[in-house]
Every structure is written in C-alpha cells, then in structure tokens.
C-alpha cells in the first residue's frame, strides 16, 4: 500500500503530461495515438529499442542520483550539467595523457578522474554555501557556464586535432575503452552502444541507497535535509554535510563521463550533453528522490529519447522536441502535485494527508 501511494503521483503526472502532449500533437496536425504508438513501440523493440533505451538512460541515472543526493540534503543541485562537462573533459584528458598504461590501470584511473573532478566541481558551490551562505542554485547555474567555457578553451588550446572543425579533443587511448554490453550478452548486437557504464549506474543506485539509509553520513545528510536546525542541535555538522552532499552529487554527475567518454565517443566532445543535468532534475522528481525510483524514471526518459528519434523521422509534423515538451510537462505536474491532490481527496484516495 505504501508503495502504491509512492507511485500514484508520478503515474498521474506521466499520464497528464501525455494527455497535454497529445493535445499539442493534435494541434500541429498529427495523430496523437499513432505518434505515441511509434514513440513507445520503437523504444521497446528488441534488441535495438531496449538497447538504446538503456544507453540513453545511463547518463540520466547518474544525474538523477546526483540531484537526489542534493535534494535529500535540502540542496538543489542544478549544476549537474557543469559537473559532468568538467568530468568529461578531465576524463578525456586522463585517457589521452596516460594512453600508454594498460587497461587494468587506465580504466580505473579514468573512472576515478571522472568521479573526483565532478566531485570537486560540485564541492565548490557546497563550500561557498557552507562557508559564506551563498545560494547553491545561483552558484551552480553560474558554474555550468564556467564549466562549458573552461572545457571549450582548454580543448581548443591543448587537445584539439589540427584542422578539426568540430570542437572535440583527440581520441583517448584504446586501453581506456570500456566494453559494450554486446560483447558480454549473447543476443545483443555489438553495434548498440549500451556499455559497462550502465552496470555502474545500476550499482550506483544500490550504493546511494545503502549510503543514504545504512550509513551514519547518509543519516546525517538526510537529517540536514529534513531540518538543519534540528540536525545541528543533534550534533550533526550541517556545514560538513552540505559540502559532502554536493561533492557526492558532483561525483555522481561526473560518472556520466564514464558512459560518454570511455564507453561511447572515446573523446570529449563540446555539447555532448543533451541537457542531461537538467533532465536529471526531472528524473529525481519523478523517481521521488529514491534510487529505485530514479532507475525507473531514467529508463522511462531514456525510452522517450529513443522513441523521439523515431517520431522525428516517421511522422509528418512532429519532431523529436516533443520529448522535451513531455519532460517539461512531467516536471511541472510532479512539482505542482497539489493540482491533483484536491480532486483525489474528493474521490477518497487520500485518507491521510501524507503521501
């Protein structure tokens, strides 16, 4: 029953978003039912649909977890975008600079670089908040732009191939490549880019769950999020928890680089992130800031991205931007769940005030 209650609002939000999205589709002159059939059908086909859905879900699991850890500490990390940009650049740097190392050393080194650089970028707004009280939302927004600028400048100055028109680094060493799941799962073709990073993402969900609910630090982070005053009174160093939560959040966002740089494009590529950081907010909200929910929500959004590409090609007027609209609507409906609370209470679904 408790689980059902957790699922009610996210499900209503998704349905409401699809209804409004359907009206938009109808207004611009396509058949909503047919569009949604394409969207969902192409995302669930085996092996391409599911393979790509999981591939697109991977970065969203990381950013969704990043936002979740922040939320649980009462912080809104909208800087995942910047954290993953810096991490992707740093990871490419490690992959290029230490290309002569064997895979056994280079892959862990590159993964560690991804996590630590993201964590460092995330810890800065955490420190600023803890030490000087400046708001993390503004600082993380600013640091998103700074990250994009710095990564772009460093790429152009030091890591760009001569005459390459695209803003990207040189390729990383071959020993830094992580295997695609197709090499391990028998009936999954190797051309589908879902890779080991997806396994890491699922493990990260388990880790975040254990960390938040089974460790002292996790408890203290949640206590800080629930009530900073009470936590401080109870002997928790709120400042330390803020920095810790932001660093952990940044580290999780940084792990997107493992999927992107080590598992897919094998280089840093300016603008690779299709709003992963911001979609992470939607993922965390829809997943009700719980690692299991994040996993489900990320796979759902991954399916939308995959399906959106097909909608783009096979419908008359609708482009893949329908997915952005659906994402935004889901966030709006989850955020303003009070919108549904009234009608539901009237129908007797909400006996207790807390859901």
């Amino acid at each position, binding site marked *: 029953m408790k689980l059902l209650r957790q699922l009610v609002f996210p499900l209503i939000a998704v349905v409401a978003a699809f209804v409004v999205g359907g009206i*938009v589709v109808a207004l*611009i*002159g396509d058949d909503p039912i047919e569009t949604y059939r394409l969207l969902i059908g192409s995302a669930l086909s085996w092996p391409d649909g599911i393979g790509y859905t999981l591939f697109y879900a991977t970065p969203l699991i990381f950013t969704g977890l990043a936002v979740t850890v922040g939320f649980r500490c009462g912080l*809104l990390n*909208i800087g995942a975008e910047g954290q993953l940009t810096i991490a992707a650049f740093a990871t490419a740097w490690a992959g290029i600079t230490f290309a002569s190392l064997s895979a056994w050393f280079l892959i862990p080194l590159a993964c560690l670089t991804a996590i630590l650089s993201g964590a460092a970028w995330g810890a800065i707004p955490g420190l*600023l908040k803890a030490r*000087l*009280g*400046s*708001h993390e*939302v*503004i*600082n993380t*927004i*600013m*640091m998103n*732009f*700074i990250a994009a*600028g*710095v990564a*772009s*400048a460093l790429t*152009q*100055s030091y890591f760009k191939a001569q005459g390459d028109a695209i803003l990207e680094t040189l390729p990383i060493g071959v020993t830094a490549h992580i295997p695609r799941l197709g090499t391990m799962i028998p009936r999954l073709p190797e051309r589908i880019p879902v890779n080991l990073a997806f396994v890491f993402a699922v493990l990260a969900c388990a880790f975040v769950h254990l960390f938040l609910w089974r460790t002292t630090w996790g408890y203290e982070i949640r206590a800080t999020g629930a009530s900073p005053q009470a936590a401080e009174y109870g002997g928790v160093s709120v400042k330390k928890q803020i920095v810790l939560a932001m660093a952990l959040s940044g580290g999780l966002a940084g792990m997107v680089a493992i999927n992107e740089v080590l598992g897919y494009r094998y280089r840093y590529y300016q603008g690779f992130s299709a*709003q992963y950081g*911001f*979609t992470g*907010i*939607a993922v965390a*909200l829809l997943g009700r800031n719980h690692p299991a929910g994040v996993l489900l929500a990320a796979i759902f959004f991954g399916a939308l991205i995959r399906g959106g590409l097909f909608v783009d090609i096979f419908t008359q*007027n*609708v*482009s893949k*931007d*329908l*997915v*952005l*609209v659906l*994402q*935004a*609507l889901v*966030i*709006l409906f989850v*955020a*303003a*769940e*009070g*919108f549904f609370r009234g009608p539901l209470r009237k129908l007797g679904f909400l006996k207790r005030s807390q859901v």
Partner: protein
Amino acid sequence: MRNIFSLAILYSTIRLATPLLLAGLGGLLSERSGVINIALEGLMLAGAFTAATVTHYAGSPWIGLFAAVAAGVFIASIHAVACIQFDANQVVTGTAINILMLGVPTLLSGALFDTMGSTPQIPRRNLIPNAPIVIAFVLVPVMWYLLYRTPFGLRLRAVGENPEAADTAGISVARIRYSAVFLSGALAAIGGAYLSIGQSSLFTRNMTAGRGFIALAALIFGKWRPVQTMFACLLFGFAEAASIQMQGVIPYIRVEYIQIIPYVITMIVLAGFIGHSHAPRALGQPYEKE
C-alpha cells in the same frame, strides 16, 4: 587597446545589454515579490519565437511585439499558478519552463515552416532595431519609481520581505505575486523579441543562449535594485562586446575566458566579497494564508 573603447563598442555594449536589462528588470519584479524566476531564459525564448513568427505572418513588428508580450505573460502564468497556487518548488518549475521553451518553438517551427527550429527571414523594414533599447532604458527610472514611490511597489516589496505582515495589513499576497510574475513574463518576452526582430531578423533554436541566466546574474549583482541592475547589465554587455571585439586580437587569451567573467563576478558578489547582496527575505517560500 584603443579599439576596445571606441564608439562602436559603446553602441554594441548598449545593444547587448538591452535584452539582459529587459529580462533582468522582469526578474527583479518577480524576485522582489518573493518568487524565484530562473524561467527568464524560457520566457525570453517564448518572446523571441512568438515575435518572429507573428511578425512574419502579420507583417508588422509591433503586432509581433504585442504577441510576444502576450506569450510571455501566458508562459509566466504557468510558473505563477504552479508556484503561487500549488506551492510547487519555484526553481524546479522554472527549470521545467526552460526545458518546455526549448522544445515548443522547435516543435512549432517544424509544423509551421518545416524547419529545424528557425523561422523565415523577416525583411529589414519590418524590424525594430532601436525601439526596445529605448524601452529598456526608459524602464529603469520607471521601475525605480514603481518600486519605491508607489503603493504597488511598497506592497510588492512587503510581500517579498514579510508576507505574513503584508497579509495582516490587508494586502493580497497572491494577487501581488501574480502581477509581479506576469510583468516579469512580459518584460522578459520583450527582451527575447528584441533578439529575434531587433538584433537579428529571425528566430533560431535556443537563440537566447543563456542570456536569461546572465540577466538573473545581473539582477543579483545589482542587488535586486533597478539602477544597479542596469549597471550590471551594461558591464555584462561590455564583457560580451569586448569578447567579440577581441576575438583573435590577443592570441594567448581565449574568448571563453572573457565570456565567463560575468559568471565569476556573480559568484564573487554572491559570496559577499563585494558588499553584501541580500535576497528578498521570503524569496522562494510559498505563502499559505492562515
């Protein structure tokens, strides 16, 4: 260095500061009433796309501008209803609107013009390259007067600082906040419209390119005050103008480092190193009437 301080760069500073100023003043009203508005970016996009599309069909930039204002108010009303009526998290709602406005113009331009997010070119005679500049800078004293010399301004500031007290004094917190957010949508939309039918002659995908966030930075740098916000916008406009001008002039400094200056300055200001910048006290807190 001489070409950096030429008349041309002064004009381009003012031109580049204009959209920031319009959105910044809009954001200022909303934030002064206690509603965080990180949706400025999306509101500007709504204005830019509507202005270009309507001007294309109607053939008059003034009708386009008017439509942009209407679109800005409409999109802002989503933010307002979610935040004021349903106590949604204001940052989250703002983010949703930014994502929404990344998608909607592209979706519509695909349906209307069969393009990947851009509108057709608008002929030169149908552009308004100067009027929004005048509007923006005239609005600064108007805004100052509105905030500090009118009953509405007093109520707006009261609602942003201490909604309980304002409520006790018989002021409708919700009504003031609604009007502030609507106005912020209108102003940000004019700023966006200036980009599409003033500076250039068409709408392109994501053409604001973060200007809504710079406007937000400017209003924080300006300590939530109209005149200071104007100076912040001019400074950020100058940083952009200089970075365009200096492209390739100094080979060892990449333009990106100049472009990130506004963001770094904002963080420094926010950290309290250049005077204290205090946000309205009730900023971000939904108000529930007892």
